[in-house]
């Protein structure tokens, strides 16, 4: 009896200190960032000039902030707040980790330090963001002139590229189709080891899950544009490189969608099939596959749709399709021809959208 209680007490103490540590760490980060934003705004409005005599740019200010001091300051403030939480109310970190304590629950946000801190934090983020991204309403409202040329061109599409555009549009649609088609079998196979609910039971399954997930997340993290550059230098400029780039990205994206679908199935039929003495593969075939096929189809069609859109961008860097002839027109400022191509793309995307929505409706 005694040792068991001891162990429980120790576990509780350990849990409590861990929670404290988490709360303080969270607060330290938030307070540190707050200090940095305050310093940023002070510097920005101090009128300080750089060696060239101009006002400092946002990037220059970011460069000279005192990050180490902000870290130390944030940590000290976080420690103080978590030490005196009874007097000043729970910090954000504490409220996040341990929940809002009972006696604070009825308070409005304006009655707590935490509430005010949150409000100030959001304001600071907004103002710093305004400066860091160099928002400039004046320019936005007064310098429309140049862009008007483009808009005028887009509104007066020229027929000169219509023929070539239509041909490349066909290429674009097939490019997207091939990328999707090749992605389906691989994603289908990868989706099962990537589903948490199928991979809990054995060590092998857990390893398969980790490997599949890591691989998929890595592939998905790399933008299709980057894949396009890789494959262009591999197989050369043209639609094939575009297919490969979209294919790799689609495998990862479809695997994720498929596996999430598998994770959300009704486990009842699986159990019923397992209870008949069926083997693991039979359980997958009868208990899982019928439930996921319709959503898989619908995701796949949606993916084809996305791939048509993406292939335009891929074409820009040399991955074939309609984007490929769009780029030189943009560079030369042939806005009428750009207008034609943009209209073609928009029309196709709209059509794909409508068709895929209709098909998806039918399947589910």
């Amino acid at each position, binding site marked *: 009896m005694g040792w068991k209680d001891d162990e429980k007490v120790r576990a509780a103490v350990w849990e409590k200190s861990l929670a404290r540590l988490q709360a303080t760490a969270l607060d330290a980060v938030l307070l540190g960032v707050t200090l940095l934003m305050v310093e940023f705004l002070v510097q920005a409005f101090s009128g300080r000039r750089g060696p060239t005599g101009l006002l400092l740019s946002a990037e220059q200010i970011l460069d000279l902030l005192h990050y180490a001091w902000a870290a130390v300051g944030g940590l000290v403030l976080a420690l103080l707040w978590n030490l005196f939480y009874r007097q000043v109310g729970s910090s954000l970190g504490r409220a996040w980790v341990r929940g809002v304590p009972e006696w604070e629950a009825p308070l409005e946000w304006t009655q707590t330090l935490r509430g005010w801190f949150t409000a100030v934090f959001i304001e600071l983020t907004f103002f710093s963001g305004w400066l860091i991204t160099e928002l400039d309403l004046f320019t936005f409202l007064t310098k429309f002139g140049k862009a008007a040329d483009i808009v005028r061109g887009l509104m007066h599409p020229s027929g000169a590229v219509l023929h070539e555009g239509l041909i490349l549009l066909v290429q674009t649609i097939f490019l997207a189709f091939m990328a999707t088609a090749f992605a389906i079998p691989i994603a289908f196979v990868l989706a099962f080891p990537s589903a948490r609910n199928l991979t809990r039971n054995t060590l092998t399954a857990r390893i398969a899950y980790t490997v599949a997930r890591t691989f998929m997340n890595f592939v998905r993290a790399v933008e299709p544009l980057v894949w396009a550059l890789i494959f262009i230098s591999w197989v050369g400029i043209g639609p094939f490189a575009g297919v490969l780039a979209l294919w790799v990205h689609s495998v990862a994206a479809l695997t994720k969608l498929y596996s999430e679908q598998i994770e959300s199935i009704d486990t*009842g039929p699986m159990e019923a099939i397992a*209870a008949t003495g*069926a083997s693991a593969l039979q359980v997958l*075939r009868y208990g899982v596959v*019928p439930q996921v096929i319709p959503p898989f189809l619908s995701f796949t069609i949606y993916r084809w749709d996305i791939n048509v859109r993406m292939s335009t961008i891929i074409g820009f860097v040399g991955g074939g399709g309609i984007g490929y002839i769009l780029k030189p027109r943009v560079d030369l400022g042939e806005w009428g021809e750009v207008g034609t191509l943009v209209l073609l793309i928009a029309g196709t995307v709209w059509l794909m959208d409508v068709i895929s929505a209709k098909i998806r409706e039918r399947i589910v």
Partner: protein
Amino acid sequence: MTVETAIRVENLGMVYPGGVRALEGVSLEVHAGEFLAVLGLSGSGKSTLLRCINRLIDPTEGRVWILGEEITGARGARLRGMRRQAAMIFQQFNLVKRHTVLTNVLSGALGRSPLLSSLLLSFPAEERQRAVAALDRVGLADRSTSRADALSGGQQQRVAIARALMQEPRLILADEPVASLDPALRHSVMRHIEALNRDEGMTVMCSLHDIDLVTRYATRMVALRDGRLVWEGVPAEFDKSTFKEIYGEDAQPASNTGF
């Protein structure tokens, strides 16, 4: 040995990963050929007990024997072979909704079917005949090509019974088979389970929470309360004080139960 033991459960305990204790020290025997009802409030551990018996979940303590063979610790083909002996019927039917009624019944034969053709949903002619016969027994032969989810709840549960029949098991584990059905339809489903017990000689272990059904169909009953076995007897011995013992002091039997 006079009475053959179909299921033996010894000191069974189950603690779920979250730390919930669902069963503690449950020991019981199910005799061959009997219809054993398992009673208890919801949450008392009835489903957990039934699922531990065919190892849909792994008990954390204790041992289970099916037809004299220990299923706890069994793996792979041996476990599957033992599962084939014990068909399960679920409260939620658990049919494959998008498959036809016939394919659902055929899936009861998966345990003895060749892997490759079964993955293509293809079964030998004699299995198909058996499936049609099983459907006929539950009165649904004319619905064999319907999609399973086109059927009513009572019909779906009868398909599930046909699937169990198809499995040619020696035991039936039924987990509140009629709890999600309209009261008027309960007997139509229970009668089919009774027929499996009486005509096919299958041993039935069935959780129920309607006392009426228990006294009508069971030959013996056990009761769980908070994961422990608290009562064991025959329907004739069941009375008001037993009721209180199982369901607690505050519980009231429904007015039509007769006591």
